[in-house]
């Protein structure tokens, strides 16, 4: 039961977090391939995948040498920072303090950047291999891919759950790639803010759990405590959004009255 809880929550967390990163990488690769050709975009993507596989091989081995308590402390801290960052952003987007992430707008900006130079004039596009296209696809896939690797390692390294975490991330990447190939457009309908909210809660719960174990705390119900932490974090975040919305509304009202006066 406890093993199932841990494995399923690890797979779900890795899947959701990786899908957000994969959607962001897909947006750039699609823009590159539409503007400057599939061949160069795919070459840049393939090169990035090779680098990512090498990173996994190097860090995967190195992790086995780190003492478990130290790993729990470091991974717990990183997961907590990562999770709280996403949770904060999702909460502020729900409240309307910051704008929602718009893949379609990012796609348009990327296309404009690839078509125009610094002065805004249209660039001449090369006919063969395109170094700019290769570099742009490579950078996007490497950056987002490194984030996926960190997520997988953080979720899976501590309790030997690297396989479930990797499966979750792989499933997310394959799903996003398949959707991109079929749709030929950025996945702007993915509810990114809701995903970030859920992932933020999952990651923060894992972070608190691992950090607690790292400093020697014995959580009640062992791995089952992660579910309790998730529930508490979800309730607190929901309450935080309601309070922040009220504060925001009062703030907007005051600003409007100030303008009228």
């Amino acid at each position: 039961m406890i093993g199932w809880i841990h494995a399923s929550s690890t797979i779900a967390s890795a899947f959701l977090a990786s899908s957000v990163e994969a959607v962001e990488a897909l947006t750039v690769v699609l823009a590159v391939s539409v503007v400057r050709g599939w061949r160069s975009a795919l070459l840049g993507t393939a090169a990035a995948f090779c680098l990512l596989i090498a990173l996994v091989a190097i860090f995967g081995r190195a992790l086995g040498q780190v003492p478990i308590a130290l790993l729990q402390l470091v991974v717990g801290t990183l997961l907590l920072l990562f999770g709280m960052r996403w949770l904060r952003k999702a909460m502020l987007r729900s409240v309307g303090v910051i704008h929602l992430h718009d893949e379609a707008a990012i796609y348009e900006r990327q296309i404009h950047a690839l078509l125009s130079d610094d002065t805004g004039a249209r660039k001449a596009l090369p006919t063969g291999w395109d170094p700019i296209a290769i570099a742009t696809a490579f950078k996007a896939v490497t950056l987002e891919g490194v984030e996926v690797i960190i997520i997988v390692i953080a979720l899976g390294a501590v309790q030997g759950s690297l396989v479930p975490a990797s499966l979750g991330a792989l499933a997310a990447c394959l799903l996003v790639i398949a959707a991109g190939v079929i749709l030929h457009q950025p996945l702007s309908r993915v509810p990114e803010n809701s995903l970030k909210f859920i992932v933020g809660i999952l990651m923060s719960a894992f972070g608190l759990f691992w950090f607690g174990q790292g400093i020697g705390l014995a959580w009640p119900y062992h791995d089952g405590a992660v579910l309790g932490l998730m529930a508490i974090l979800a309730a607190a975040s929901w309450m935080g959004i309601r309070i922040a919305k009220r504060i925001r509304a009062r703030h907007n009202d005051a600003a409007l009255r100030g303008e009228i006066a």
Partner: protein
Amino acid sequence: MNFALRTMRGLLGLFVDDGTLALTLIAVIVVVGVLVHLGAIKGVLAMVLLLAGTIGALLINVTRAASSKNPG
């Protein structure tokens, strides 16, 4: 060089978006960790402090951002 810097910035950005929240969270976990290590607190009290401290840091940060003109 530019790519390496951007990668490093991207990696840092993965964990730190709002510096104040990151520092507060680190302060909370360091204080709880030190208190547990010294034996000043243990068990449920340490768990409650850890949970309440991190959630409190998040909620204060979000409500402050909601009431500020330039939340960042």
